[in-house]
């Protein structure tokens, strides 16, 4: 047990020390994790046996397998963020560019490898393995550098998606290419020993099942859980869901990342989307970080030391070849230069799939362990060099294009899914607000925490998301950072206050409109700096009062002016009393009584004034609550 603690502490604390530093220096978190991992790897090599582990290599391999789940979580989150319609629009890039990229790269690499003397079959497998790129590093870095919504970023993602799909047939094909017919042979744990021809249709069936499951079973399940209002059960459910899908897909030979991605896309329309994202995000962050560390820790220094220039040469050669092919393909699709370069640099490395495929290949004896180790090392080095390429892009390439195209340069297309208007709480108060906005072309991201209520609203076609809007991390997930306006329609005053306090901390510049039950709530909200506060019944009551005047004989416009006069005077009074509430609370009731009397007095006077106007310019009469007379 102690050994486990020590190892865990070693990994985690090394990350804590190195990653923020690397981020600060502009190297990005991925490089930080890799470097931290290398450090931990060196330490482990010395101490693992002492701590009771078989060997540091085995430990790191185990860790790598375990943390690969982080990549799966990442793809799930990406799926959640993506709408089905967006995905459909990308089909050209996915199959067209993706297909070409995998095909041509494989062909080139296969040819090169054959020149080293390996058999066609072995070369083909190596070609396929190295044609794929590292989804983890690319997506993580693109997100961090906020390049994901650029053309280059989107194109990268499309091709990566295709690569994920391509893994399915590739894994199926490897045993067929083996010199000897392999047994189930994978060191990867459970797999159904299925005959080849059954694989494809079953895989397809599994995908259909996942689609149906995500579409029809998940929402009712989460509704049931949400009603229990037990937060940790929700977390468990979110994780369990992803694991379940990953299990099903890998059982049927599909890359689990692809399976959960599909599930994510289906769930992107669910009312639980933001809540699920929220729960999964920390796990993904942690596991992914550890994954990169494991990659770093698995760095085979001995092998590298034995033939440093060869290995380095192979890595650089691989990256150069991929870069050229990628650039050629993306330019053929007429993408603009700066984005094309970003794409080509981003995907030039080998990916984590290579580790998997190479493992498969050795287990069916396509090539020997020595070759496998070289390949893995080459891939690892190319992965380690990738953050450097991004920095190259940022510092050298992008600025040049900004200068040249600074007038024509379009801002990267922001996917405007995150509404600029956030609405917390969707009861009677908020619904009318949103309807008015909607009719005038403004959409809002709406949050509510009553699952039954949401079900009803969704029937009406409203896109409402489940979540306790008083939790600011949910708001972040729903787009707090890019919001222009927050409307707080929650009827629970305490929750509203909590929420507003938190929001003011994170985004003091964000305009907030808040609902207040009555004056006392208003005073409190005003003291928090809320820009506009709306007493729930005030306007309605004024309207009734105005209509009552009319019913008692006032002319319409006369009643209206009377209402406006009263309203203005009341606002002035409220402003004054809000100050009293803040500075001198025990005086509040006395002040209120006095101010009310003065208000009535001045309103009566101004109305009398009106009755005596001659046919000169008539005066509406101004009620003036002179504060100095209050005391």
């Amino acid at each position, binding site marked *: 047990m102690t050994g486990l603690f020590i190892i865990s502490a070693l990994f985690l604390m090394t990350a804590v020390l190195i990653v923020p530093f690397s981020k600060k220096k502009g190297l990005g978190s991925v490089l930080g994790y890799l470097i931290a991992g290398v450090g931990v790897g060196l330490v482990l090599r010395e101490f693992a046996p002492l701590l009771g582990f078989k060997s540091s290599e085995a430990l790191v391999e185990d860790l790598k397998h375990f943390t690969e789940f982080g990549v799966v979580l990442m793809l799930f989150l990406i799926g959640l963020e993506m709408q089905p319609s967006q995905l459909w629009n990308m089909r050209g890039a996915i199959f067209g560019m993706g297909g070409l990229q995998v095909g041509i790269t494989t062909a080139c690499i296969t040819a090169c490898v054959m020149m080293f003397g390996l058999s066609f079959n072995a070369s083909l497998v190596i070609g396929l393995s190295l044609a794929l790129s590292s989804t983890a590093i690319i997506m993580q870095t693109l997100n961090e550098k906020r390049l994901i919504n650029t053309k280059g970023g989107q194109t990268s993602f499309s091709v990566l998606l295709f690569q994920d799909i391509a893994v399915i047939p590739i894994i199926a094909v490897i045993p067929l290419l083996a010199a000897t017919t392999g047994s189930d042979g994978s060191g990867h744990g459970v797999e159904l020993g299925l005959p080849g021809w059954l694989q494809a249709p079953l895989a397809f069936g599994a995908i259909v099942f996942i689609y149906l499951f995500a579409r029809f079973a998940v929402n009712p399940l989460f509704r049931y859980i949400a009603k229990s209002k037990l937060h940790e059960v929700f977390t468990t459910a979110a994780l369990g869901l992803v694991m379940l899908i990953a299990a099903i897909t890998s059982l049927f030979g599909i890359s689990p990342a692809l399976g959960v991605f599909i599930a994510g896309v289906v769930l992107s329309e669910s009312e639980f989307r933001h809540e699920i994202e929220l729960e999964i995000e920390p796990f993904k962050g942690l596991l992914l970080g550890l994954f990169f560390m494991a990659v770093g820790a698995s760095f085979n220094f001995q092998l590298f030391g034995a033939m440093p220039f060869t290995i380095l040469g192979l890595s650089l050669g691989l990256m150069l070849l991929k870069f050229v092919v990628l650039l050629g393909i993306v330019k053929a699709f007429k993408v603009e230069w700066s984005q094309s370069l970003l794409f080509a640099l981003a995907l030039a490395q080998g990916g984590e799939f290579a580790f998997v495929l190479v493992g498969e290949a050795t287990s069916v004896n396509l090539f020997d362990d020595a070759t496998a180790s070289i390949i893995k090392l080459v891939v690892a080095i190319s992965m380690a060099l990738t953050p450097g390429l991004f920095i190259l892009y940022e510092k050298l390439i992008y600025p040049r294009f900004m200068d040249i195209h600074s007038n024509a340069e379009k801002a990267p297309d922001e996917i405007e899914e995150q509404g600029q208007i956030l609405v917390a709480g969707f009861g009677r108060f908020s619904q009318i607000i949103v309807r008015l906005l909607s009719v005038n072309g403004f959409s809002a991201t709406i949050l509510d925490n009553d699952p039954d209520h949401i079900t009803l609203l969704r029937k009406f076609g409203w896109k409402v998301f489940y979540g306790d809007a008083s939790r600011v991390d949910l708001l972040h997930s729903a787009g707090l950072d890019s919001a222009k306006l927050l409307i707080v329609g929650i009827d629970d005053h305490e929750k509203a206050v909590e929420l507003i306090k938190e929001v003011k901390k994170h985004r003091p510049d964000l305009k907030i409109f808040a609902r207040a039950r009555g004056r006392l709530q208003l005073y409190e909200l005003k003291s928090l700096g809320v820009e506009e506060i709306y007493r729930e019944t005030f306007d309605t009551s004024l309207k009734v009062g105005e209509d009552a005047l009319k019913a008692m004989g006032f002319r319409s416009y006369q009643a209206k002016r009377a209402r*406006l006069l009263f309203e*203005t005077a009341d606002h002035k009074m409220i402003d004054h009393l809000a100050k009293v509430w803040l500075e001198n609370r025990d005086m509040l009731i006395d002040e209120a009584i006095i101010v009310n009397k003065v208000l009535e007095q001045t309103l009566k006077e101004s109305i009398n004034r009106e009755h005596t106007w001659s046919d000169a*310019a008539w005066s*509406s009469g*101004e009620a003036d609550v002179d504060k100095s007379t209050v005391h």
Partner: protein
Amino acid sequence: MNHQKKILVLFAHPAFESSIINKSLVGIIKKYSNITFHDLYEVYANFNIDVKHEQSLLLSHDVIVFMHPLYWYSMPSILREWQDLVLQYGFAYGSEGHSLEGKTLVSVISAGGPEESYQAGGLNGVPIKEIMTPTRLTANLTGMDYLAPFTVFGAHQIKKEISKDNKSDDLDNHSKKFEKLLQLIKDDNLDIQKAKEVRLLQDMIS
């Protein structure tokens, strides 16, 4: 001794978001931080004019500008409401009402039809100066000098030009003259007497 005149622009346009001419002119006004730009439809969307506030604005400026499109030979209704409420007996006129005496009132107008239509024999049959008679009389009664109106004619035509070519020479010319006039008024270099006598205020600029 020339000292700076303080200018108050009372702007009345119910749909400023889709205006073209006024947008251009307002852009010019906003370049000058010491000209007060008061957007009536923006501040008083409910027509609930704060009379005391408006009166104190009038007191603290020397030149009052009514800036508006010409709607039915008059001004958009909020400016009418403004006059009805703000120019109170005892403030703007009457035996005790001298607050506006000596100030200058000028109209800055955008009109749809071409200049030719605003004359005897034209479609509108009557020159702009005559159409603005009620405003001139109001200035008289309150003791203000009413200058000839600065008028941008042919608003319809200008809008067509802009939507086709994204520019209009006519509008540019008017804008340049408008800016010169603002400067003249601000620096107290305008011959008030002549400005009352010309047909249109832009005629003061050659």
